[in-house]
């Protein structure tokens, strides 16, 4: 790709053969002796990625996908094996050599400098110069060109901090292309994107491959993988257990390979499978939507989002099943009326939201990223003041400990990374009478805290299981599990001294999690509902919205664009998502 600027251009590989070739890579990490001394994160893995192809690597959290890619990119030095690009062996453990050879990596956690503009971020480290000065205009032109070519529509002059997650993702891709990458490694690129945004990104990935670039796509989303990759490699416990042409496999087969043991496969794939007696949404990969549900959804869909209509929707959509199981919808827990609020940039992001949440129901909020969902969640948990309108809470939902909050940005708002897993597992509930001796200066009851931590770690399968490990040493998926475990389970019955959870606000609760963990988190959210909490889930993943929501609220342009019944037709939800002003941003 020729760029207006002067990025370090690698010598073009003219030879045939794979653009990226991983040869028998093995990586062994040292671990505490108590856990066996070593951890083989990557075990004798070979993988070839030809030019112009998209190869997907799938696997559960901790299967070794990220380790493999960090080896390819030189962030880790392999214990044995080699990495070849265009036939040339790379210097091991040297990202610099990997970059020079044309390998670019987009990490799951963005590596961007907030206050700098998009163009400055892209050029950082490879700045075009005019004499001794940074040639800003040239950098901006180069970014605009790349952006146009991929249809990204990003403004090179905007500060990164003010860009949406989807835009930041695009900036990361532009960044590696700007450096002349011919092999792109994308780690969970669509984890934080709305369906339309994800589709656009996959389109760009196809365009990159058509141009002759090689793409390695790490993903949990099997449908995406099958739609865009030509081959799929499956990893489990550090080993590459299978490699299939995308045309000759299915989501079911891949899921079975990922979790190991054919028997475990189908049961775990059906994420949306409802617990007995409850009607759930359709299972995402099997796509089984009850025809009756869809019909009811269509019939009762009310775009206005009025209170009366919502009631009608719940009645029509959930029918007798809803009322028959676990008590169903109870008393109102929170009520927003005409709520308006500004976002961090001072722009009005909520423009008059009416929303009531009732005990014993899950309300799933769908919408294109940046249409007010973030601000809605922050208002509900008390982190963002209302500018207008009213916000009422039931008595039970007023105690801070009675509100479970799974924040959108787990590292900024959900965790104290330098502290231990155990300390993070009690953050916010740390003053519960069962965890401190209130009679004695709130001295921490170390034994009680450790026991609670051990149970939470077990419940969400946090790995590693060492409660003393620093939170920052865990993978993103396991960090997310810490937050979910704490917010939903550090409460009665595991922590009887804390008030019962009255309100759950979960934003993207399964971002970056594998299938097994997603099913676990969904089950925990349903448990919270069945225990009588009002649950609000914000998700950019329509499968998740439809799988979880007893009621679906679609937000667009800072307003509630529609309230739909459980399991509403995907296309219908999508239409409402794009109906508001927010669609202009998408």
């Amino acid at each position, binding site marked *: 790709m020729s760029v207006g600027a002067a990025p370090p251009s690698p010598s073009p590989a003219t030879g045939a053969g794979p653009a990226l070739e991983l040869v028998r890579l093995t990586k*062994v*990490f*040292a671990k505490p002796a108590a856990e066996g001394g070593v951890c083989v994160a990557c075990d004798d893995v070979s993988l070839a990625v030809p030019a112009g192809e998209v190869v997907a690597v799938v696997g559960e959290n901790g299967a070794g996908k990220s380790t493999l890619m*960090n080896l390819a990119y*030189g*962030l*880790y*030095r392999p*214990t044995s094996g080699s990495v070849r690009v265009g036939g040339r062996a790379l210097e091991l*453990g040297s*990202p610099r050599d990997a970059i020079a050879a044309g390998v670019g990596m987009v*990490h799951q*956690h963005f*590596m961007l400098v907030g206050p700098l503009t998009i163009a400055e971020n892209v050029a950082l480290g490879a700045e075009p110069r005019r004499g001794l000065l940074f040639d800003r205009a040239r950098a901006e032109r180069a970014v605009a060109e790349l952006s146009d070519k991929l249809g990204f529509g990003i403004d090179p002059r905007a500060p990164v901090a003010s860009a949406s997650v989807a835009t930041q993702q695009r900036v990361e891709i532009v960044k590696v292309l700007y450096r002349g990458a011919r092999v792109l490694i994308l780690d969970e690129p669509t984890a934080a994107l709305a369906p339309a945004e994800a589709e656009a990104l996959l389109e760009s990935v196809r365009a990159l491959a058509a141009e002759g670039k090689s793409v390695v796509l790490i993903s949990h989303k099997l449908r995406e993988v099958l739609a865009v990759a030509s081959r799929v490699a499956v990893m489990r416990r550090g080993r590459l257990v299978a490699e299939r042409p995308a045309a000759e496999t299915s989501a079911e087969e891949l899921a079975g390979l990922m979790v190991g043991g054919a028997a475990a496969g189908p049961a775990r794939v059906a994420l949306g499978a409802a617990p007995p007696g409850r009607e759930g949404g359709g299972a995402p990969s099997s796509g089984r939507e009850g025809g009756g549900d869809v019909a009811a959804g269509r019939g009762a869909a009310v775009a206005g989002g009025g209170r009366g209509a919502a009631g009608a929707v719940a009645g029509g959509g959930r029918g007798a099943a809803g009322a028959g199981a676990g008590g169903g919808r109870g008393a109102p827990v929170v009520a927003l009326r005409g709520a308006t609020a500004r976002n961090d940039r001072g722009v009005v992001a909520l423009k008059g939201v009416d929303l009531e949440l009732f005990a014993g129901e899950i309300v799933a909020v769908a919408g294109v990223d940046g249409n007010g969902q973030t601000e809605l969640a922050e208002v509900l*948990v008390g*982190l963002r003041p209302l500018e207008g309108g009213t916000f009422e809470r039931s008595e039970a939902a007023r105690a*801070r*400990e009675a509100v479970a*909050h799974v*924040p959108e940005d787990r*590292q*900024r*708002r*959900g*965790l*104290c*990374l*330098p*502290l231990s897993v155990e*300390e993070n597992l009690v*953050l*916010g509930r*740390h*003053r519960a009478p069962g*965890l*401190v001796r209130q009679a004695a*200066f*709130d*001295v*921490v009851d*170390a034994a009680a805290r450790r026991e609670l931590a051990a149970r939470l770690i077990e419940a969400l399968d946090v790995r590693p299981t060492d409660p003393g490990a620093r939170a*920052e*040493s865990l993978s993103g998926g396991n960090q997310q599990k810490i937050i979910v475990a704490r917010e939903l389970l550090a409460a009665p019955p595991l922590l009887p001294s804390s008030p019962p959870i009255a309100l759950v606000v979960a934003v993207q609760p399964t971002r970056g999690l594998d299938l097994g963990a997603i099913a676990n988190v969904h089950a925990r959210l349903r448990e919270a509902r069945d225990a009588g909490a009002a649950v609000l889930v914000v998700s950019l993943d329509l499968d998740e919205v439809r799988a979880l929501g007893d009621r679906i609220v679609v937000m667009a342009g800072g307003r509630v664009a529609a309230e739909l019944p459980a399991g509403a037709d995907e296309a219908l939800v999508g239409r409402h998502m794009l109906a508001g002003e927010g669609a202009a941003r998408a």
Partner: protein
Amino acid sequence: MPEGKAGFGERLRRALAAGTALPSALAVASALALGFVVIALTGKDAAGGYARMLDGALGGPEALGETGVKAAVLACTGLSVALAFVVGLFNIGAEGQFIAGALGAAVAGASVRLPGPLHVPFALGCAAAAGALPALAATWLKAKRGVHEVISTILLNWVVIYLVHDWLVVGPLRAPSSGANVSASGTAQIFASAELPRLLEGSRLDVGLPLAVAFALLAWLLLGRTALGYELRAVGANAEAARAAGVPVARRLYLAMALSGALAGVGGALLILGTERRYPGVFRTGYGFDGIAVALVGGAHPLGVLAAAFFFGAMRAGATRLQLVGIHPSFTELIQGLAVLFVAARPLFAALAGALGRPPAGKGAP
């Protein structure tokens, strides 16, 4: 790879927070070794010098007393800086807070008549309050006006220094000179009831040392064992997450800085009530600035700070003996400086070790 987002200051803070005893001990040993080489290179008797220094610091009750008195003061100022570190603030104002506390103790000790068991606690309390004041001012400036605490605490140092040394001590608070005592300058002598009781015959060791040890233990218990200390550490680790979890972040910052300033102030009080017995006319100590070094070498851990305070106290006590073999006492400052340098360079050592083939613990730096 969350570390990629952390700035240099943040990474330094984390490296310090992660402090284990071993690297600091190695840094101190390296500093002593290199100091030895430097002294030898100047053609002096390094072995003799070190022997005298050791004697001056640890040889006998008098030497031990000197070390103990200095270590007590340094432990207070070191704990002051370390406590601010915990909530993520860099309190460079320990010197000013130390001076404010010293003056507070001198005034409380000389102006009020109280029975013995009450006078010392009263004077220490006044010193704590006087030390907390400038620290709280800096925190208020940060909370309300966004002034960085490094800037405000440095500048407030000079406000306090000029206010105390160039006005109060030579002006309103100067002791009226009596005929018998013309040469003495500074504030009035404190009453005997305000003096710190001495502990050891033939030395100046007083209750300041057990007090400082108690402060370190209390700080250790507070930070490691209580919900409040947990909240302070959470604020330092990620204030945004702490806020989201319901921790009153601003109040915790005020509390930590108030305690920080109070500890520095009490350090000043120990020196006044224990050895000086008045605020002297010429009082250039640097105990507050040394507190930063003590906190760094001590890994910002209360018990580490205590150990580092003993090292720095011993160096201060032994310094004068170096002159006996013709070595300038400022060589002890060189050694202290080297110790800080080696501690601060720990990430560098770790990176070097990583580059030499040992598998990196978490990730290689890109």
